[in-house]
């Protein structure tokens, strides 16, 4: 037991170990790279999937009980889908007992302060349907409702490239926009790896080209929805 190892034994052992370690290290490098790539791909794909699922869910429910002409707007890197997501705070647009759909508000006047609507409760269920950070679609315009908007106020401040016109029909919308942290929905980050978001309306409908990037790994996704 106390004899120890001879130099030769140690040298042979070290050589063997080095070879094995090198092999293992190569394997580790390979595995770690694969792990990172897979992780990045997974992250990209998860972001794209999450974004596409959200978009898909909203597209499926687009303009529910609202005018179909106001269903979707693609505004640069912003996508607006008419509708209100069902949340614990809002039951979504619901059929009224008497008032016939489609439901919408009418733009009564447009000023520098914002857009005055005839109602903020388009389905008459007693719950205000326009809220801050949501989207806003009218016949001639679309944009985002300003974060400072107080729900229930007829004067709605919106950020839009072109202002709506008096007499326009207006509906609340879900807005997707690409901001610094990633793809946001109604101002909330939903897919951080999304680096490119290009919705556009074509003759066939809505086409969305999304790209996600994570540590050099890039994935893209093309979504297409037939929209009248």
């Amino acid at each position, binding site marked *: 037991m106390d004899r120890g190892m001879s130099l030769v034994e140690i040298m042979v052992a070290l050589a063997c*170990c080095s070879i094995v370690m090198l092999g293992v290290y190569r394997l580790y490098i390979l*595995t770690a790279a694969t792990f990172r790539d*897979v992780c990045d791909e997974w992250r990209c794909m998860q972001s794209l999937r999450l974004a596409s699922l959200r978009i*898909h869910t909203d597209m499926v429910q687009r303009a529910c009980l609202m005018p179909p002409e106001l269903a979707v707007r693609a505004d640069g890197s912003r996508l607006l889908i008419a509708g209100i997501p069902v949340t614990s705070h809002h039951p979504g647009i619901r*059929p009224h007992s008497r008032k016939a*759909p489609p439901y919408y508000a*009418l733009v009564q006047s447009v000023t520098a302060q914002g857009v005055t609507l005839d109602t903020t409760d388009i389905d008459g269920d007693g719950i205000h349907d326009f809220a801050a950070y949501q989207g806003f679609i009218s016949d001639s315009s679309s944009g985002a409702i300003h974060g400072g908007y107080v729900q229930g106020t007829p004067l709605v401040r919106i950020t839009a490239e072109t202002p709506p016109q008096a007499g326009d029909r207006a509906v609340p919308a879900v807005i997707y926009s690409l901001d610094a942290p990633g793809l946001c929905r109604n101002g909330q980050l939903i897919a951080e790896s999304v680096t490119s978001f290009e919705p556009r309306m074509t003759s066939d409908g809505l086409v969305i080209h999304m790209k996600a990037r994570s540590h050099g790994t890039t994935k893209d996704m093309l979504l297409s929805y037939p929209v009248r």
Partner: protein
Amino acid sequence: MERPRTCSFPTPSDKRGFVLALALVFLAIALGFSLAVVSLANTHLKSSGAFLKTLQQMYLDASSGSTKTKITVMDAPDGWDHIHFCTELAETVSKNVVTYSWRAGVRRECMPLHPGLLTPTRPAAVVILLDDSVFMLESSGADYEHDALFHKAPAGCITRVSECSEVEDSVTTALGTFFRGSYGNVHERAPAGHGRTGAMPVVALAFTHALSLLEGLGGCTVALAGISGGILHPFTADIPVLIRTIRTIPLSHPQAQLAESLYRSLGMFTDPCTPSRHVILVTAGVPAHDGNLPGWLADYDHDSNPDDRFLEGEGSHCLDDVASYARACGVSVHVVGPDTAFLRQVASKGGGKFMPLPQDVSARGMSVSVPPVALGGKVLILANNDGDLRPSWLSSDHAERFRESVCNPPEEVTCADIPLAGHATAFSHDGRDLFCTTACDRIARIDLARQSLESVVLGIGGEVVIRGGRVIAGPSSEGTVTALTPDLRVQWRARGDCVDASDSTVYCSQGSTIHGLARETGETVCVAHAGSPVTSLRYDPVAGAVLAGTSDGLVFVLDEGLKMAGVLSTGTGDAITDTRPFSLRGLQCVLAATKGRLCLFRDATLSWSLEAGGLVMAATVMDAGAFAVVWRMDDACAGADAGVSTLLVVDAAAGTVEKSVTLCTGLALGPCVDLSSGLARFVSFLGVTAQEDITGLHGVLPAGLGRKLAFGIE
């Protein structure tokens, strides 16, 4: 000698496989990394699978599995007539997906705006010449029917009301005295005269027949004349007015210038449009102080009767000569009165009938006076035959027949002898029963499934509205609006010229005053004044507004409590015949029709006004288009079977004519919007059907309103 080797760092094992163990440890670590990668890949795959499953769940086929559809009836859609249409919202639940769709539904039928024009070309012109002499009060030779009910007007005219009597002996009301036949045989005996005995006077016999005949003359123009006082009522197609006039004639004239008055009555036929001319002489057949005629006429029939001359007392025999002359002039002379040889001879020489029936005076054949009824794929036409509502598809007639009790109005009594007289004037249905009024003030309940007549009630006419389980009908020819239960039990009556109803209130106009009456009791709950006579009254169920069109071209917009909300002016001064409220992109609009013009008000401002180029017979709004049936008739003598009807489609927003389609010859009735087949159906006065495809209108076919996912609450 082997020197033992010593080492300050002894190996933990002296086994030779230790190095291999170390290598295996490294391999295990590498394997761990590999497993981690595989695990990550597996997670990736699972994530993909979950994504796929989520997508698959989103694309659930609505046709697979159990689906439940709920239909909700709502207010009219945007761009559609609020009165005529409603919205049917279909809510289909399939697993976790709720799908919405809508289509327009018919809320109320579109009735013709000028029912008084529903007479054929060259209808028969009839003069009813009434003997108002005291001889009418003499015995007719017959007794009163024992169980029949008779009415003695304050002026003395006695007529039979019905074959049944709820009066035991007699009862006196504001309308006069009603008595049972058995009572009349004792207490209302007519004096014997001219060889005739019997309790019933001639007037009861002759006027009762005349009234019955008159009810069957719908579509004819009829005038009333008395032998003593000339014209009692000029030519009119309003039969109920004539019936009321007859009942008020006093029978007190001591002379009976039958031949002279018959001769004078021939001068009443001045209208060149009526080649078929008749005189119905309702008489006791006792000429007195009669025969003062031109010499050539006194014995026109050359029968050399010595009494063919003027006689101071009774006995002049010139009546048959004048009847012969009338026949030669193309006027048929019919006689209603006691069955005597003289009167039969007069009828014979006059080319008419003794005790004529309506078909002897005017054989009018088939006609249609209301739009078709579209129901569950079937199209029913409420055709009239010889002026009475008698559709061929009405398979059975086991109807209960009611009239208002003369003792305890509005209580009703059952009487079998109430015919369904008069052409159809308006109808409404609730999908199960159809309620139709006639020009002779009858309302009929028809079971649509069995296509059978169930009830007929006398004394109720005008438009029909079904609201909140009540049938509101009116005004009748007497200007009465009646609220009935669905089995046609009268709830209350009120006076009114125009009528419409909400679920809680019935709105009636009388002159320029509009009353709001409680639907259940008929009590007045609100009143408004329009300043000029109201010619059209509509309730907008969507806006909860009352629209009152006036004779001077104004439309008053009132709230449900009849408080003034605004006034719309057509600027033409023409009487408003109809108003049709609708909304266009949320803006309240009103389509107002006058006799020959359409006007559209948008947000209380006159948006456009359009000359229709004819008589606007019906107007409605569908998918932001104003649809008007316009009847053009150039011939002044022509009736509802002549001319051309056109469907005019006007863009409600712009006021431009989008389409003008010729529908049929003659007056077209409709549109009957048959949404199940996507057609607007019309029928002409002569029963020729026409249709217009309206499937291109948004809302005729079910239109999607999107989907809602039941999961995914954030």
